[in-house]
């Protein structure tokens, strides 16, 4: 499935892909794994498919508010989506690091809101990807303030 133009602002030239096709995961580049996860998690707001397809069962979680491992985290995320039907991740930029020894780091900068009318949070997620899976995750979240000392916005 090719997302609508503009849905992948970080890579509009991406060839068509099915983000749920895990058949040949080890043949995918770290960039391709990231694109598939990003489509499911941030664009479609479908943490269950995103995690079951692309998160390693034993992935290392550094978010202090989430348990480690895929299934425990997924439980928390699925509840959040169920409780917040308006929840959205507005993608701002994706930064792909170099691939070294078969693994790479990918940074996702996005605007997270639980409700459409809230200011929400600026979030950076860092994902470590190898062998077709996300194997480690760090994040930093900051609430968007009402006023700022510049007019550039947080993104």
């Amino acid at each position: 499935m090719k997302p609508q133009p503009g849905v992948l602002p970080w890579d509009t030239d991406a060839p068509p892909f099915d983000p749920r096709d895990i058949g040949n995961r080890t043949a995918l580049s770290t960039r391709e794994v990231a694109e598939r996860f990003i489509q499911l998690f941030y664009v479609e707001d479908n943490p269950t498919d995103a995690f079951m397809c692309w998160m390693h069962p034993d992935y290392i979680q550094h978010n202090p508010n989430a348990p480690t491992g895929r299934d425990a985290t997924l439980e928390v995320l699925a509840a959040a989506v169920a409780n917040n039907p308006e929840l959205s991740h507005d993608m701002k930029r994706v930064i792909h690091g170099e691939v070294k020894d078969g693994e790479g780091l990918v940074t996702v900068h996005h605007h997270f809101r639980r409700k459409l009318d809230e200011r929400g949070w600026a979030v950076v997620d860092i994902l470590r990807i190898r062998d077709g899976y996300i194997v480690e995750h760090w994040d930093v979240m900051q609430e968007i303030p009402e006023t700022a000392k510049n007019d550039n916005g947080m993104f």
Partner: protein
Amino acid sequence: MLSDREVAERFIEVFYNQNRLTDAFAEWVHPDYIQHDPNSATGRDGTIEVLARHMEANPEMTHDVKRVIHGENGMVVVHYHFRRKPEDRGLAVVDIFRIKDGLLVEHWDVMQPVPESAKNDNGMF
């Protein structure tokens, strides 16, 4: 002309490792750089004034760089542990820079206090 990576490495050394914030800005930041940190003014010189006061108020500050991601088109990500004093729990911070023609031209960041306790044993870094 230095590569984007070389510019990033030099800025990181002076700013994060040597804690010479104002020197790093004077040397590597574009005068009209675009600031997205909501607590800072935009432009280089206004920020240098803020950083000078910040250095004076926090002589023990440290930036413990955990990982750097060099992306395409001059984008660089620095994930680090900021502490005003050695005994602080401090903040987890991500800075994102855009480098162009040898200078830092744009900056975004997010920061979050490191909590006293966490739901996992992996630490924030």
